[in-house]
């Protein structure tokens, strides 16, 4: 039914819809899409801000827009809440570290079994959200923050805390980075993940302060060991209060003495140290460099990153402002950067499913497949998140990626997922052969397919070409 509708309206209908939408979104100013970006740039924008690929319908609806209008439309359609209902246990009060400690061995064993089960359900929930969301960009940024402000179920153990953290990351994904960092410093999952809940005046624990500087804000080389030790004192006493279900900095456990951080001294608590962090120009540069690596290229461009950092800082650390700058810049669309990024495992799984229009009836298998490919969401390997890039691809994961794509595309009849209409359309549809390749691949395939090859062969060869691993 859906596919017949799409056939009936066709490309022309898609164009009309998107023009109508555009005039709604940008009502105050008359639409002046001075220059429409065209298929190739629209594909690039949607693939890089989505899951590594985009559907023909989405590409065509963006292709008529200017870069600025396209990025405005992307940013104005992001969501702050998930559309997928969470697992039904999510309202049960979390079991704190202290409560767990008071349990008998048997109770603890049962709790851990339940947590493992729920952890898998939580992962499946996020995959479902990624598969069905109308805003892939929201998921990409939430995943970006998950890899930046990492926490893992393995260490945190209580799935509810990770769910709350996920809600926080998506709520502020495009918001004020300072606010996000302040909230992360008092996030229950983070308190456990980096041992903040053990940090007190008489027993300082440096773990959070160190990773905050090294991985979350300043980057290596922009602080001293003394800064870490002093900042750790400022973060002492932050605790999750079970009765209030909220985090507070306990006066009793906090070290109220004078600390000296970055050459300044005061009776700092958590937020004051963060204010000092945001006064350091290194912070904006560090985040800008991460965005560049995430969305543009693994090879840094000092000038572009500095320009992005300046925009970011002047905007009051607005992520939306930084992303608008990044995604409308000539450098983003530069042909030199096309196909330079490796699709993440989530890109491979979710992107391919969305591209083919498949509708998996459950997403637990995606959790396992992501794990096999090296990206176990809610369980990043280290506090640095996932290294990403070329590291995604090794001899084991490359074979598994190829195997999964073969199964998703139904080669050998392997996939049991419903919804094969769009795949059939790709084979039978109205795209030219060259258009089909341009839809599937970010740059020309490494092994060109002979012009006389059938469309099925063209499709399977494009999917097995190494370039399909890129975005």
């Amino acid at each position, binding site marked *: 039914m859906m596919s017949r509708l799409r056939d009936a309206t066709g490309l022309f209908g898609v164009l009309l819809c998107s023009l109508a939408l555009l005039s709604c979104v940008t009502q105050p100013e008359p639409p002046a899409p001075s220059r429409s970006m065209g298929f190739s740039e629209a594909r690039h924008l949607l693939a890089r801000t989505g899951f590594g690929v985009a559907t023909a319908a989405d590409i065509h609806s963006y292709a008529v827009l200017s870069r600025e209008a396209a990025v405005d439309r992307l940013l104005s359609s992001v969501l702050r809440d998930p559309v997928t209902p969470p697992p039904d246990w999510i309202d049960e009060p979390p079991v704190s570290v202290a409560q767990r400690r008071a349990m008998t061995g048997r109770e603890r064993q049962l709790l851990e079994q339940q947590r493992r089960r729920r952890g898998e359900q939580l992962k499946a929930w996020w995959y479902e959200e990624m598969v069905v969301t109308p805003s892939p960009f929201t998921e990409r940024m939430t995943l970006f923050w998950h890899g930046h402000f990492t926490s893992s179920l393995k260490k945190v153990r209580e799935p509810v805390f990770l769910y709350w953290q996920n809600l926080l990351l998506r709520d502020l994904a495009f918001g004020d980075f300072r606010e996000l960092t302040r909230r992360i410093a008092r996030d229950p999952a983070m308190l456990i993940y980096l041992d903040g809940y*053990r940090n007190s005046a008489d027993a300082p624990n440096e773990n959070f302060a160190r990773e905050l500087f090294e991985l979350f804000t300043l980057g*290596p080389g922009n602080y001293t060991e003394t800064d870490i030790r002093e900042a750790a004192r400022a973060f002492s006493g932050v605790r999750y209060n079970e009765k209030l279900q909220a985090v507070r900095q306990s006066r009793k456990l906090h070290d109220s003495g004078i600390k000296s951080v970055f050459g300044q001294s005061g009776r700092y608590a958590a937020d004051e140290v963060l204010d000092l962090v945001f006064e350091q120009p290194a912070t904006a540069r560090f985040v800008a460099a991460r965005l560049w690596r995430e969305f543009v290229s693994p090879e840094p461009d000092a000038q572009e990153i500095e320009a992005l950092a300046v925009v970011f800082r002047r905007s009051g650390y607005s992520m939306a402002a930084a992303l608008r700058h990044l995604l409308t810049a000539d450098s983003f669309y530069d042909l030199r950067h096309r196909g330079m990024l490796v699709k993440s495992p989530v890109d491979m799984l979710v992107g391919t499913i969305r591209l083919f229009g498949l509708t998996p009836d459950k997403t637990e298998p995606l959790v396992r497949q992501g794990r096999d490919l090296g990206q176990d969401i809610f369980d990043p390997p280290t506090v640095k998140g996932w290294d990403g*890039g070329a*590291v995604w691809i090794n001899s*084991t*994961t490359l*074979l*598994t990626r190829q195997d999964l794509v073969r199964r998703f595309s139904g080669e050998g009849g392997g996939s049991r997922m419903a919804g094969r209409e769009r795949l059939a359309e790709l084979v039978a549809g109205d795209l030219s052969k060259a258009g089909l390749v341009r839809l599937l691949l970010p740059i020309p395939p490494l092994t060109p397919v002979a012009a006389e090859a059938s469309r099925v062969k063209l499709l399977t060869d494009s999917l097995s070409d*190494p370039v399909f691993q890129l975005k």
Partner: protein
Amino acid sequence: MRISRRHLLSGMGVLPLLALRPNMALAGDWSRILVLVELAGGNDGLNTVVPQTDPLYRRLRPGIALSGDRLVSLDERFGLNAALSPLMPAWRGGDLAVVQGVGYPGPDRSHFRSIDIWDTASDSAEVLTRGWLAQLFDRDAPPGDFTTDGLVLGHDGAGPLAGARRFVELRNPGRFVRDAKRSPALSADAGSNPALQHIVRVQAEIDRAAAGLSGDGIAATAPGPAFPKTGLGHQLELAARVIAGQARVAVIKTTLGGFDTHINQVAIQRRLLDEAGEALAAFRGSMQAAGLWDRVLVMTYSEFGRRAAENGSDGTDHGAAAPHFLLGGRVRGGFYGQAPSLASLENGDLQYTTDFRQLYSTVLQSWWGVPSLWPGHPPLGLIT
């Protein structure tokens, strides 16, 4: 003048290559295998090889110091964390070496920076991108008919092999061989895109290794008694099957993670060292049963040791030097190097006494019989 000079230079560039390459390929005893065990997260050395008679040890660690049946004595001064007691037969048998105080000058306390330093054998302030084994294999590669130069088991990346041309990551050999048969053959040139170059290199190495890993390339079962059903147990079992099979490799890397013990260290480290001790003991038994123990050198490493004093959360924060283990049929057992003094800490950390590159020189010079890449760091003389 200019032209002749250029001719001369180009001639000099080519000739040594032609003259040296065949010799280089022959250099080294590549029947010997290195098995690396990475203890990821920064294993606390002071609670691994414990200075049991030093009163400062208990003063620094009133809450987490080990004593009584949590230790087994290695000699009158040092006790081994009892979780590692499966290694005691190797210690008594004289094929377990304990190298004390391994570290480097100007220690970096970041997990990521410090493991990069270990992986690339760089100085503290020097950033290199190629692993120390990749650097070696650039100069002295194992024979061309090897299945692959290195096998990476476990999940922690290529580490010392990063940047090497010939290595594969392997989890399930049966599936690897099966999937490789269906994988597309590539003949095209990847051009200048680094990501694409990487994929093409991986694909080529898959094709190459899959042939050697199929059939009796990997023994159907590991020789000797059963391995423990743990993460490291599975990795070392696979390592044993590879070594006992027809496949030929120079290096096998395994990983055990979780050593970042900022809290509740005693219980967490006990569980991890338990896993390490049992898996290593099984591996030793397996190799001995197959008569292959003389061909194997096992070496542990970790990004850093931990702070000498405990931190007040019953754990320890990131530190510097730590002891490491070498095991094998040709290892001359015993202690090597000086245990760092607990009386002269540097910023609260143990000062290193053995540069980690001495371990690497030992592997290159004493194990494989090729010149060290780090001549300033002499081998430890623990291989017979």
